[in-house]
């Protein structure tokens, strides 16, 4: 009888103690046994005790409930042997391992009819010489929850990847929008020199055919033994004096035009330099500012005067084309803040271990209620379609990536100052 509840060593010890005790103690031991049985009956974990032949000696109510749930017909099981629970509940290998090592744990998946299954966590332990205790926990819900979690996690990972892709796309489209904004100005700036160089070439063609006919006339006159008067009349007729004066001028103006186009193209290349995103180099901030100013000069020159006050700056470890994008966004905003005519100041200096770039304008300024939002993504005060509202948000991101800061201060009606500070060397 006592072995029926001897599930654990302390209980065994208790029963041993009970055996060796006098009669008074035996009564107490019986009471103890009843208490322990009540305890195991009350435990919500299915608990079985069986012998080496898998004859069930004891099964608590939780075990009967769980066994019923594992049956296809959901009917009560007699549970005379372990196999009554389910033929596949316990395989001989597990029992063998338990005999050798004293305990065994493992999961089994049981088909329970109608395509359903249950996942059970078994824990076997040897009790005494030829008895085994077994607890069975239904972990079907747990493992369903677990696989659900896995699935959700995978979904989240996919969503995250999508968001990252979307962010890149948004940044790219912002870049394209600023490029589009630039394109008109740059086209104008290129079309002007190309316009006059092209026209000058047509003129030059005309001049050259005039020169060729002059040569022919001279040759004919020479062959006819002509003198200075005839040469002079040819000269006047073909307006050679004018040609001689105009050709060098035409050429130098055309040269100037081509130089300008080359410079614009060089600045554009400098500005939009393709670099791998992790290509940090030590770069001259002034060069970035200058090439950016050159690029957007076409946008600014009609309304703003630029006052540059460049200090002595060391090379700064940075991603130059990304910084150029920041400078462009800030300078374009400065230009747009100026209604008619104004001044944009670009000032650089060193402040400790950082360089400072201040870009100021004397334009409309930013109202106090708007000021805290200027770095918010998609925040724009421009009419729909003319700004993505991402310029400053992206600038903020780029400056943060450089471990720098970007701050704005503004007085409505007086102007705005953007202060960008960048560490000279990136923290290791």
């Amino acid at each position, binding site marked *: 009888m006592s072995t029926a509840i001897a599930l654990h060593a302390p209980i065994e010890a208790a029963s041993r103690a009970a055996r060796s005790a006098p009669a008074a103690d035996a009564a107490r031991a019986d009471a103890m046994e009843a208490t322990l049985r009540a305890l195991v009956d009350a435990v919500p974990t299915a608990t079985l005790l069986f012998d080496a032949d898998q004859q069930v000696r004891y099964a608590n109510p939780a075990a009967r409930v769980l066994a019923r749930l594992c049956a296809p017909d959901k009917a009560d099981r007699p549970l005379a042997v372990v196999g009554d629970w389910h033929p596949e509940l316990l395989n001989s290998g597990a029992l063998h391992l338990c005999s050798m090592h004293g305990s065994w744990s493992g999961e089994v998946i049981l088909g329970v009819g109608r395509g359903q299954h249950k996942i059970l966590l078994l824990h076997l332990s040897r009790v005494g010489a030829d008895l085994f205790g077994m607890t069975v926990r239904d972990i079907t819900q747990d493992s369903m929850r677990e696989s659900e979690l896995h699935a959700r996690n995978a979904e989240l990972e996919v969503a995250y990847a999508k968001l990252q892709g979307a962010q890149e796309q948004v940044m790219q489209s912002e870049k394209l929008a600023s490029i589009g904004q630039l394109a008109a100005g740059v086209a104008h700036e290129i079309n002007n020199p190309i316009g*006059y160089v092209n026209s000058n070439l*047509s*003129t030059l063609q005309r001049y050259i055919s005039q020169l060729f006919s002059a040569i022919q006339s001279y040759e004919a006159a020479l062959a006819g033994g002509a003198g200075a008067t005839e040469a002079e009349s040819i000269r006047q007729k073909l307006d050679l004096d004018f040609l001689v004066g105009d050709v060098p001028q035409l050429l130098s103006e055309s040269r100037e035009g081509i130089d300008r186009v080359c410079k614009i193209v060089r600045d554009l290349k400098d500005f939009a330099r393709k670099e791998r995103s992790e290509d940090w180099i030590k770069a001259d901030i002034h060069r970035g500012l200058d090439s950016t100013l050159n690029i957007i000069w076409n946008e600014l020159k009609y309304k703003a005067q630029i006052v540059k006050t460049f200090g002595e700056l060391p090379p700064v470890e940075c991603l130059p084309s990304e910084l150029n994008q920041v400078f462009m966004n800030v300078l374009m905003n400065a230009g747009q803040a100026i209604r008619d005519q104004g001044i944009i100041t670009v000032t650089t200096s060193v402040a400790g271990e950082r360089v400072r770039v201040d870009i100021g304008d004397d334009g409309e300024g930013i109202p106090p209620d708007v000021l805290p939002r200027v770095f918010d993504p998609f925040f724009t005060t421009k009419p729909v379609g003319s700004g993505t509202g991402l310029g400053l948000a992206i600038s903020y991101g780029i400056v943060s990536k450089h471990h720098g800061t970007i701050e704005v201060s503004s007085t409505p009606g007086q102007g705005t100052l953007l202060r960008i500070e960048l560490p000279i060397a990136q923290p290791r």
Partner: protein
Amino acid sequence: MYRILLVDDEPNILSALRRCLASIDVGELDGEALKVEAFTSPEQALERSEEQDFDLVVSDYRMPGMDGVEFLSAMMELQPAVPRMICSGYADRDAIIAAVNEVQLARFIGKPWVDEELAAAVVALLRPGGTRVRAQKALRAQAASARITRVEQDDDGAIVLRSDDPA
């Protein structure tokens, strides 16, 4: 003599336009000479226009201080009958439409231009229908806006204004 007023903030454009106009054979203009006056500042061009009548105005669109449309509308006040042309590399469609509507542009020529086309446009505007422009000035002043019945964009993007009744 035909007087042409050129305005562009870029001096080299003015030189090139002068050379282009110099290529027009006087024969095409009934033997009349062309006198070209060029300004890099629209304000100065307007000042000059207060004392001198012109037969044609050619202006850039994008200029500091005053854009081509602003300049040409001021010009319209001073000399309503003078035909107005814009020669610009600024290809913004809205700007062109505004120019056409606000200053009743006779031609829009894009930069870079083709010399022959520019010269032909100048000749056509100076001698519409082969008769002298001055003789028609008064007439055109009254009819200018009414006569534009079609606005078209030709192959190289220039906006062409047409009237259905040939002048």
